[in-house]
């Protein structure tokens, strides 16, 4: 059974690129493109890995992460934040909220793939 990833991202072209990279490696990729109901989507799909953008319409990636970690069943769910906002304070905030990995855009395809495989061996 292949590993599943939920990609929460609103930029269509980036969704396309990440989906391509991960599915070619054997991941099952699901996507979700707004903030409001992102947590519902995670609850519904129960992915092995969540890749999360920060600047999302409706609800920021940080808020999604915070709510996610409050749910006991998602305490240990690997979450990879992938954001264009790469300032130190953003990284610190993400880490304080319990992010598993923090990567900034633009990224190298290989790094994203390696990170995903690292988080879900």
């Amino acid at each position, binding site marked *: 059974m292949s590993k599943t990833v939920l990609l929460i991202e*609103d930029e269509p072209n980036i969704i396309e*690129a990440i989906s391509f990279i991960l599915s070619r490696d054997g991941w099952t990729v699901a996507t979700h493109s707004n903030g409001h109901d992102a947590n519902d989507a995670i609850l519904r799909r129960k992915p092995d890995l969540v890749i999360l953008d920060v600047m999302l*319409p*409706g609800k920021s990636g940080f808020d999604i992460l915070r709510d996610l970690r409050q749910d006991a069943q998602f305490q240990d769910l690997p979450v990879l934040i992938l954001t*264009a906002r790469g300032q130190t304070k953003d990284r610190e905030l993400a880490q304080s909220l319990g992010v598993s990995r923090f990567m900034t855009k633009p990224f*190298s395809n290989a790094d994203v793939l390696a990170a995903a495989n690292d988080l879900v061996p």
Partner: protein
Amino acid sequence: MINFLISASIFYVAVLFFVAFWAERAAAQGRGAWLRSPWVYTLSLSIYCTAWTFYGAVGYAARSGLEYLTIYLGPSLVMLGWWWILRKLVRIGRAQRVTSIADLLSSRFGKSNLLAALVTVLAVVGTTPYIALQLQSVTLSFSAFAQADDLGMMGAGNDRSALWVALGLAFFTIIFGTRNLDVNERHHGVVMAIAVEAIVKLCALVAVGIFVVWGVSGGLAPMLEAINASPHQNWHMDNARWVALTFLSAAAFLTLPRMFQVLVVENEDERHLQTASWAFPTYVLLMSLFVLPIAVVGQSILPQGSNPDLYVLTIPLALGQDTLAILSFLGGFSSATSMVVVASLALATMVSNHIVMPIWLRYWQGKFSAFGDVRRIVLLARRVSIGFVLFLGYLYYSLSGGSAALAAIGLISFTGVAQVLPAMIGGLFWRGSTRMGAICGLLVGFFVWGYSLFLPSFGADVVMSANLMQNGPWGIGALRPQALFGIDGLDPLVHTIFWSMLLNAVVFVFVSLIDFPSPLERLQGAQFVNVFDHSSATSGWTGKAGQSEDLMVMAQRIIGSVQAQKLFQSEAHKQGVSGFLPEPTPEFLERLERELAGSVGAATAHAMVGQIVGGTSVTVQDLMAVADETAQMMEYSSRLELQSEELSRTARQLRNANDKLTQISVQKDAFLSQISHELRTPMTSILAFSEIMKEAGDLDRQDLNKYATIIHAESTRLTRLLDDLLDLSVLENGQVHLNLVACSPNDLLRRAIATVQAGEAHRILRINLRLSDTVPDVITDPDRLGQVFINLITNARKYCDAAAPELTISLTHRAGRIICDFVDNGSGIPKEDQEMIFEKFARVGQTKAGGAGLGLAICREIMGRLGGDIAYLPGQGGGAFRVTFAVDAHNFSGH
């Protein structure tokens, strides 16, 4: 010769009358500035040297040696130290229109009439023996002449002459002391007459002295020899007595009613003190210079048992120098009369102001209309008081039989009057002193004086039984009159001075400390203690309109019509009111009260004004002004306040600047963060897909094409973003170059619509264009204005969320401005976002249709440059923007 003496006396008195009359006239006519010279002032102070000093000093020296000098030492010290006490006393006296020593204390301690009455009684009791003493000296000197004439004046004759003298003095004092009710309570006639008398008595004493030294002893050297040979070289110097007597005479100099009258009340100019400070000590030095020689010569040439108090007179008589004897007599006469005149005048002022007037006032309850001229009442009261005081003196003289030594009476009298000193000095220098403290101190001091000195002075079994004096009341030894608290062996005078002053001062201080002063006391206390700081008075009155007339009626009755009208008119003029009736402002009432106080004393004046105006209301500010901060502290604190205000202003400015900087810094951070985001997002796609294309060799043609298209679109987006950023930066920095030409707004709109529709890809937007024929051509930059139009149409196309998006564009022309509205049929922009849509990178809603959020920011900048405006137009049923611009952008562009 006795007849000649009587003629000479009558002639002398006539001269005095003439001098007084002439001085009064000169003063009334405004002539005689020299009447107000410091010399006259200094000479008037010489009433300190009464008949007691003129005759008695010699007797004193004959009995006790050089001790008589202490009587001159005390006042000289006070005069030399005028800067500390007298200057303040005179300043206060002038500022508060003080009429007497009783008035001073009353005024200081909350205008208390009780205190004034108490001091008055004390002064009358203390002064009466002294007046008796003067009468006695005159009769004694008379009888000395009579003896020389071998007429052998009987005791009854003595009494008769004393009566005549008393009557004559009363007559003189009434004529010149109560001619009018002067607002300043100054009596030029009296002062001038006593100045003349001062010269006469000095000349007389010096003449006798010169005669004694050069005429009798044969020169200075034999005189000094005689003095050395006399028993006086053996006088023992009792230190306690010296200190006590010096203190006593200094205290009496300040507190004797007559001294207060000439020192303070009759003072014309504060600067006179400066002259008097050395001239008066010089005068008393001259007065005391020949005292010892006269005493020594008297003892050696006159028969045993001669009264040494009369040596000044009996030496010339014995040696046949009749002219000198008469001069000497006139000197003694002068000393006595000047003292009696001023003392009875001062006492009469006190009695009438503090005893008669308050009773009268209470009786009439302020119904001034019921009684005629108050001035007549006051003057009548004074005249009667003068008669009363002199009658008391005469009575005392008759009853005491004129037996006691002159000097003894003098010192007893001094000690009684000196009881006022603690309250007076406390009132001048200590703001904490209170009315109750002053009253208690005075009563205690006065009681101790009466009990331990005054009553025993009549001798055993006269007033006090010998048993009481020996063993104390009820046999309590500690209460023996002349050995209080078991301290025995002290000189009776020193004993009384010590205990009365000590207990007086202690009680005064103690009661003041535990007592709480009334508001008026606080106010007056501050005025007295800080008399040199507060030149203007804080007032306690609050008058009501319509009271002015009553005040005028009252003032006329007290200070006379002319004076009152002058006062009211000048005040009305000062207030800018025409006529005679000024508004009863607190300042005016204060001034009026002070003027009245000059006539009837502070307490009575206060009560009179109070009866018309109603109660005083000492305001919180008044109290604040005097409470514990002095005016200086207030000023200092207000300066501090000012400084701190300035500091806080600077701090506020700094805080604002800091806020602005922080805000700018936050904005800059947000801006950079936004740019970073906006640049990274397309860059991410470009990099990701170029990597995919590079590494994955198995892509089909279709995918390759698709990815290349993405890369292209994102690159275009990047380029557009950079263009927008540059555009905005140029616009914001004002470096934009506008190409202003005339063009038609209609055409511009049509062209913009065409441009947008040409690039229309995903959505169809219906546009209703409502152009206007009346809109004139405008002068503007067509490219820039077109850019704004295109942006707005594009936004509508992108963001209008209606199922069938529609945009209505309408153009109107109003008041020289072109108005262009863009209204779509979508849900519009939520109210809370309407403010921020023109900010950079602001984006509303969830859709992320490629824009970086710079469009409206750029539009706003452009419209600003074109002298126009772009704003969100709420309440149009959908998203609505209004663009406004001038017909001629020249007027606004600043180019």
